[in-house]
Structures are given as structure tokens and as C-alpha cells.
């Protein structure tokens, strides 16, 4: 079993290494998201007077109004960072499945002793692990950049318990969700572009999550992040079951177009 899953993993990763798009997504998406968070934190206070916005620093915190303004943006990064695995995992999933469809390699694969769930697990691991690693590395790079820019005193407010729970629980849950939606979308799609529209189903709630936090409608705590992650993991479990059924031999050969 492990040999067959490892075989899928090796081939998937070899395929990714030969696909400029996959590598580009792994690098470009994190750079864009880190860049926009840092850039906005730097540039907005140059043009907007934070005191006019009325953000009062907590008494005795030693923070300035500019720091408060900056924090408002920086503190959203752990949630913006969810877009990194969401987008990369989705791209990996769609490329992996759509390539199998366009090259017509699925039926010969299904004629080998590999079980379809082994194939799916191999593909999920191959697509999700790089996405998750890229997201975690990006979070590290983000913290390093914030410190290098002289905003180290703000890190205690950014790298808090909520952010850590998000990294450890929410991020893997979003990654798997995105990959599985990619698989489901790809089973009906004719090409990668068509399949990637499913990424919206993951990206939109993440944008919504960031928006409701910025306007102060909801403030995620460590506990609410755990609850949210648990809910997502539950949805993942249901969707993975659906994907396994969709990924059955018979389903692939008869229903996939």
C-alpha cells in the first residue's frame, strides 16, 4: 500500500517539477500575499492620518496610532495566508486530475493493482503537502520581514494564539478542502481553467473571513478558530468521502468526461 502511494507521490512531484505553472504558483502566490500585506502596512499610514481614523492605542501598551493602523493590516495576514494553500492546492489538484484526463492515463492506471483510494491519497498528499509547506514557510518569511522592517514590537500582537491555531489547524483544513474541491471540479471539467473555478468556493469564504474581521464584525479567538477548524475538518471528511466515491474506477470510466 505504502509502496503504491509513494509511487504516485514520486510521479506527481516529478510532474510538478516539470510544470512551470505549478512552480510559479508555489512562488508567486506567497510573494504576492506577503508583499501586499507588508506594502499596505507601510504605504497606507503614509497617506492616511491614523489619528483621524480614531484608533486609540490601549493605555500602557506603548503603541502609537500608526502602530494600531499597521496592526489592523498585519493581524489579518494569518487569515490572508489561508489563500496560499487554498490556491496552490487547488491548482495542483486540477492540474493533476485534468492532465490524467487529457492524456487518457486514468484507464491504464485503473488496470493496474492500484486501489483508487491509494491513487487519491497519493494525489492529495502530493498536492497538499507542498501547498501547506509553502504557506508555513510564507508565514515564517512574513514574520522575518515584519521584524526586519523594524516592526518587531508588533509581532506579539500578530503571532498570537489565534494565529498559531490557524496555522496548525485551520490551514491544513483549508488545504484539504481546496484540494478535494479541485478533484471534484476536475472530474467534470474539460480543462484546468474550467476546473479552477471551483477555487472560488474556497477563496470567497476566506475573503469574507478577513472582511468581517477588519470591520470588527467578528473577532476570531483561539477557541472560535478551533471550532471553525473542526467544522471545516468535518466538511473535509464529508467531501473526501464524496471524492473517493467520485474517484471510483467505474465512476471515472463511465461518468468522467
Amino acid at each position: 500500500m505504502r509502496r503504491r502511494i509513494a509511487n504516485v507521490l514520486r510521479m506527481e512531484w516529478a510532474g510538478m517539477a516539470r510544470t512551470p505553472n505549478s512552480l510559479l504558483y508555489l512562488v508567486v502566490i506567497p510573494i504576492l500575499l506577503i508583499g501586499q500585506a507588508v506594502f499596505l502596512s507601510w504605504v497606507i499610514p503614509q497617506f492616511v492620518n491614523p489619528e483621524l481614523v480614531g484608533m486609540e492605542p490601549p493605555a500602557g501598551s506603548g503603541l502609537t496610532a500608526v502602530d494600531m493602523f499597521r496592526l489592523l493590516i498585519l493581524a489579518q495576514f494569518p487569515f490572508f495566508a489561508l489563500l496560499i494553500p487554498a490556491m496552490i492546492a487547488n491548482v495542483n489538484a486540477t492540474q493533476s486530475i485534468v492532465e490524467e484526463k487529457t492524456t487518457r492515463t486514468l484507464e491504464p492506471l485503473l488496470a493496474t493493482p492500484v486501489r483508487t483510494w491509494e491513487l487519491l491519497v497519493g494525489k492529495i498528499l502530493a498536492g497538499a503537502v507542498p501547498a501547506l509547506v509553502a504557506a508555513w514557510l510564507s508565514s515564517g518569511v512574513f514574520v522575518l520581514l515584519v521584524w526586519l522592517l523594524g516592526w518587531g514590537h508588533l509581532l506579539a500582537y500578530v503571532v498570537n494564539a489565534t494565529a498559531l491555531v490557524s496555522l496548525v489547524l485551520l490551514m491544513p483544513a483549508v488545504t484539504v478542502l481546496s484540494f478535494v474541491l479541485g478533484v471534484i471540479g476536475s472530474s467534470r471539467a474539460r480543462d484546468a481553467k474550467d476546473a479552477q473555478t471551483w477555487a472560488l468556493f474556497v477563496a470567497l469564504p476566506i475573503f469574507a473571513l478577513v472582511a468581517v474581521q477588519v470591520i470588527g464584525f467578528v473577532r476570531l479567538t483561539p477557541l472560535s478558530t478551533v471550532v471553525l477548524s473542526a467544522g471545516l475538518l468535518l466538511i473535509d471528511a464529508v467531501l473526501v468521502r464524496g471524492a473517493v466515491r467520485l474517484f471510483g474506477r467505474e465512476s471515472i470510466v463511465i461518468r468522467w468526461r
Partner: protein
Amino acid sequence: MIQAEKLTRRFGERTAVDGLSFQAGEGEILGLLGPNGAGKTTTIRMLAGIIAPTSGAATVAGVDPAREPERVHEHVGLLTESPGFYERFSAARNLAYFAGFYPDLDIRRAVGEALDAIGLADRADDKVATFSRGMKQRLALARTLLHRPQVLFLDEPTAGLDPEAASSLRALIDRLRGEGRTILLSTHNLAEAEALCYRIAVLRTRLIALDRADSLRDRQFAPTVRVQIGNLTEAMIAATLAEPYVTEASRSVGDPNGLVVRLTDVDRDRPALVARLVALGAELLEVREDERSLEDVYLSLVREEER
């Protein structure tokens, strides 16, 4: 080696294969003929453990493909209609990937032997994208041989190939049969079926006929001899018809010198017919057996089924 018993597969309201029963023995190539949508690919998929039958049963190399698909895959090789490769990878890397799913297989050795068998060893490290359609099809055949299966399912192996590539692939298939493998060959190429297959199954959702090509021909068409006679008369035709071994005798349509005679057995009765015609004073110009191609047999069977 292959045994199917009332295999049936329905897709919703549509029946793709209906009550198909047959057997194929060791070292036999059994041809599957039938028009598009006749259920050839569905039959192969059921036997290869890709899809399950709605009803009926099968055993392939002693394994039930519906109950133990993964186990049956260890004993069979499936050549799908379209070769299907990861084109950015080399031929060897593609084969190594597929070989990696079989238990206890020395991958490097299996890949080397498979490439040798189909004559592509010198192209092992070339990307599949650079291969011609014929080479890809040979490579696909190599993929089916990686684990040395006892049974091969070949779905339209020569479709879309140029005559040279098709001929080379046919020679390869014949060699594989010579090694004792059982082969189920689905094809639209009737000449190919006649050249390669020991028996032929004509399918149109259900099994219309299953026999050797010669037997199908004899069953479908009465043995016929065409005779060219310089001085053919109605009296000669009547005298010929009176012979006990002649079932039918008539003037050939549009040919005043042509006589068409149906015999009970061409090889046995032809000398007697010639002797009788000479005795009747006929000026014999030509006597030849009316050869019916497998295509005639196939079309006749399918039309009969349509009626």
C-alpha cells in the same frame, strides 16, 4: 483462461452487453467483432475488472474480476483504445511508474524486458511526446507486458496506425500468442481478425455468433462455384441442377456465360461437377470457388440480427 457466463451490463435504461457467455483457452486469440456501440469495450472492461457487470459472472485466470479487481489486474494486461501516456516523461519513466503498482516486480528489469520485447529499447530515454502514434501504441503494448500477464485484453490495438505500424503490431501480437498467452482482441479490422484470431465472436449487445472464421463462412454462405462456359445453355443448367450434390444452379446476373452453382461441399463435389459439365458438352473457360470474405460474413450476420 477466460470464462464469461451471461455477462450483462446496463447503463440506466440502456443495455450495453446482454447475457454474453463464452470461453477462451490458453494460447488462444479470440476476436471480438461488432459495430460501434456493440459492447466490445464494455465487455473488455468488465473482464478486466474496470467496471462491474449488472448481472452474470466471469473468471479470468481463475479470478472473479468483479469481486477482486486488483487481484485480476495482477494477471491481466489491458491495452486501452487510446495509448495514454505522460508525454513529458520518457518511455522508461512512464513504464516504471506503471510497473511500480505491481507487487514484487523488479521494476528496472521489467521495464527493460518490456521495451526489448516491442523493439523500443533504443528510445527508452526519449520523451513520449516525440513518439509517433505507432510507437505509442507499441509502448502501450509494452505496458501491458510489464508484469508478464497470462491474459491480454487488446482494445482496437491497430486503430489509426499506418499499414506498416499495424503490421508490425500484429506480428507482435501473434508472437505473444505463441508464448501461450490468452488474448481477447477487439477490432474493426476484419482482415486482422481473420489473420490473428483462432475464433471470432460477433457482438451486437448480445453474442450473435462465435466460431472459427471458416465455420462462420460455411454456416452463413452455402459453398458456391462460379463457372464460365463458352456455350452455356438452359439445358446445361437444368442438367446441372438435377445432380444430387447441387443445391442451386442459375445464370450469373449480367454475365451470359456465367453459371453459379451451389454445392453441398465444394472440395468434394467440384471434380464431379466439372466432369458432368464436360460430359454435357460445355466449353469450360474457368471454374473458381466463390470466396466470401469475413466482411461478407460479418455484414450478413449483423444484417440478419437487424432483421
